[in-house]
């Protein structure tokens, strides 16, 4: 290696070495050259890297600005659509009619310090807001505070009127208010809220969590039109028979949806505080009642389903049954024996007791348990009555329960159980929510389809020839059972206080609805020959409800020859000298 001489011009000095050090480096000849080479190559690498980076940026710039399609950036903020927040979802019926809604309202307040002529302003305010007391308002406006409420929750029209006064010192505070457009019509079901819009009764309470903060309306199973029909017919019956109250239900036997549930007397959900306990009480779900002869449906179904009693079996009903200190009699005693269809047609207590005894206490208890009559209904409301059952189930209990005394259940439980008896034998939980076709529960089997078929025809016979004749809606093939229960007053049964009821289903060849009506303490009338029984009081209500609701639902009445098929298999049952027939499955 030849020693390098110092060049006349300073060499390239990439590393920024100053001339003093350079002089030193020049001495160390071999390594100096190497360092220079290294520096040069590093510079090249770095330069290339930067050039590449700038090139990429440049290309990207061209791509974005010139070749890009001018689209909005994909990750841009989605502009959030504004929406009205009212804090509580609506409640609607199955057809979308609003039952409960939250409305924005304005509450009027004043700043008295800005009010110049309190008396004059109070007069003008009272002119547009009639409920406002002019004297009181004037006093409030004359006070020296900075804030006084004048009136809460104005309607939009009232707000506009107040605005038009153009008076300084008046202001509005925005608030929300729960509104029930249908008033007392479904008040027990819809319920009501407190001043802070928290549900405290009915669906408002049961679905409080679901409603709060939501916007999607809650669809109930109710059909307002049918609810109205039921309420109207019950009210007419209350007036006609001077009763103290009534309850009515319409249940879809296939889905368990309640299309109507009325309890009278009702209340105005706008001012629940003004209603007394009696009005707020939901007789249809919270009230429990001894249902009387309506229970014979269950006794017959149990006896037939168990196989211990056949349709043709006859029972001697000529003598009252004496058990310890009780005597069980028939309303209209007959001095002969009766077949099962006859027992139901005539509503014989003695015959029913014998059927129940043939099946046995245990079987009855198990059967009623399966029908859901011994535990509270699973309906979504909080106002659910606990059935009243005997602590110890003795023989005497079996006997009285067989015809509907000694076991008190709510009307909701009763209609669910009747629906299970007539729909082919599957108990479906009753619901207040609209069920879509897909999510109808299969239900729990309680009786055989064959027994259900027999029961339908027995119930049809009761309406055709028996105590339920006034429940017959022409062309709709109604079947049912009447019930007249004596009310307990204290620990005794009262002679003059009754509950008249009728449970019907239609059309009996393929039931779609169970309709129930119950009238509390009806009084006999001249034109009912002094009777205030289920057959005279409740059955006509059910008939009119069916006659009015069926056409609404597009159900066509059918001529008699079509509904009472020709090839019925007969079970003889005599009635006033004629031989009738109960249909029997083939």
């Amino acid at each position, binding site marked *: 290696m030849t020693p390098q001489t110092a060049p006349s011009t300073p060499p390239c000095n990439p590393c920024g070495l100053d001339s003093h050090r350079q002089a030193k480096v020049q001495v160390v000849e071999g390594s100096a050259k190497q360092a220079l080479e290294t520096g040069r190559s590093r510079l090249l690498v770095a330069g290339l890297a930067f050039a590449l980076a700038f090139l990429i940026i440049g290309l990207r710039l061209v791509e974005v600005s010139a070749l890009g399609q001018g689209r909005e950036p994909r990750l841009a903020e989605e502009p959030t*659509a504004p929406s009205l927040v009212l804090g509580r979802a609506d409640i609607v019926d199955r057809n979308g009619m609003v039952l409960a809604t*939250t409305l924005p309202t304005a509450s009027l307040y004043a700043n008295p310090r800005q009010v110049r002529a309190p008396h004059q302003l109070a007069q003008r305010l009272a002119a547009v807001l009639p409920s406002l007391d002019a004297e009181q308002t004037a006093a409030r406006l004359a006070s020296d505070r900075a804030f006084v409420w004048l009136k809460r929750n104005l309607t939009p029209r009232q707000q506009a009127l107040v605005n038009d006064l153009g008076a300084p010192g008046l202001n509005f505070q925005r608030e929300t208010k729960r509104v029930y457009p249908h008033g007392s*019509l479904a008040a027990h079901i819809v319920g009501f809220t407190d001043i802070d819009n928290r549900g405290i009764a009915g669906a408002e309470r049961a679905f409080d969590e679901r409603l709060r903060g939501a916007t999607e309306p809650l669809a109930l199973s109710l059909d307002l039109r049918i609810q109205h029909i039921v309420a109207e017919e019950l009210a007419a019956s209350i007036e006609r028979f001077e009763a103290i109250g009534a309850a009515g239900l319409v249940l879809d036997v296939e889905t368990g949806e309640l299309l109507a549930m009325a309890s009278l007397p009702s209340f105005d959900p706008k001012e629940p505080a003004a209603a007394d306990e009696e009005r707020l009480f939901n007789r249809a779900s919270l009230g429990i009642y001894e249902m009387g002869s309506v229970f014979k449906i269950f006794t017959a179904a149990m006896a037939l389903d168990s196989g211990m009693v056949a349709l043709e079996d006859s029972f001697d009903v000529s003598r009252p049954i004496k058990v310890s200190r009780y005597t069980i009699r028939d309303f209209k005693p007959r001095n002969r024996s009766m077949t099962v269809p006859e027992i139901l047609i005539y509503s014989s207590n003695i015959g029913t007791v014998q059927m129940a005894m043939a099946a046995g206490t245990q079987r009855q208890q198990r059967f009623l348990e399966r029908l859901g009559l011994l535990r509270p209904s699973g309906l979504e409301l909080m106002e659910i009555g606990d059935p009243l059952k005997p602590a110890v189930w003795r023989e005497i209990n079996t006997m009285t329960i067989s015809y509907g005394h000694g076991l008190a259940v709510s009307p909701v439980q009763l209609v669910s159980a009747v629906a299970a008896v007539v729909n082919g034998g599957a108990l479906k939980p009753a619901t207040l929510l609209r069920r879509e076709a897909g999510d109808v529960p299969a239900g729990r089997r309680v009786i055989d389809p064959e027994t259900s078929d027999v029961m339908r025809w027995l119930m049809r016979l009761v309406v055709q020839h028996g105590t339920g004749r006034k429940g017959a809606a022409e062309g*709709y093939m109604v079947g049912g059972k009447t019930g007249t229960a004596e009310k307990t007053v204290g620990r005794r049964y009262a002679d003059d206080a009754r509950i008249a009821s009728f449970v019907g289903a239609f059309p009996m060849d393929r039931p779609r609805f169970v309709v129930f009506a119950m009238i509390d303490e009806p009084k006999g009338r001249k034109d009912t020959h002094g009777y205030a029984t289920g057959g005279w009081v409740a059955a006509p209500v059910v008939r009119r409800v069916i006659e009015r609701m069926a056409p609404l639902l*597009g159900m*066509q009445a059918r001529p008699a020859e079509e509904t009472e098929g020709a090839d019925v298999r007969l079970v003889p049952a005599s009635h006033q000298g004629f031989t009738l027939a109960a249909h029997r499955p083939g």
Partner: protein
Amino acid sequence: MIRLSSLLWLALAGALALGLFRVKLEAQHLEAELMAMEQAIVEHQEAIQILEAEFSYLTRPERIARLAEKYLDLAPLEAGNLASFTDLPWRGDDSPAPATPSDTPAGVAKAFLASAEAGR
């Protein structure tokens, strides 16, 4: 030479500033418009909410029944008022359809069709 390019740049910068100003102004206008629109949407939603409640109130079954009784010549729908198409007589040929009593739904429908035919 330097002056010319300077002027050029100055003009360019001025134009850009003006352009930017206009774009910003327009964006401001649009933003105000958007806000007004959003306000209007909420107001309309509020109105819809109130009108739906009012609709529900005005279509109370009890009220509709009362009004229908007062102003309309209609009676409640009864079982006999419903008929299906199969109940209607066949009018494919000229031979008279089998006599249908005029008090059945099919008879009423037939009479209606006949009068409609005559009126044409």
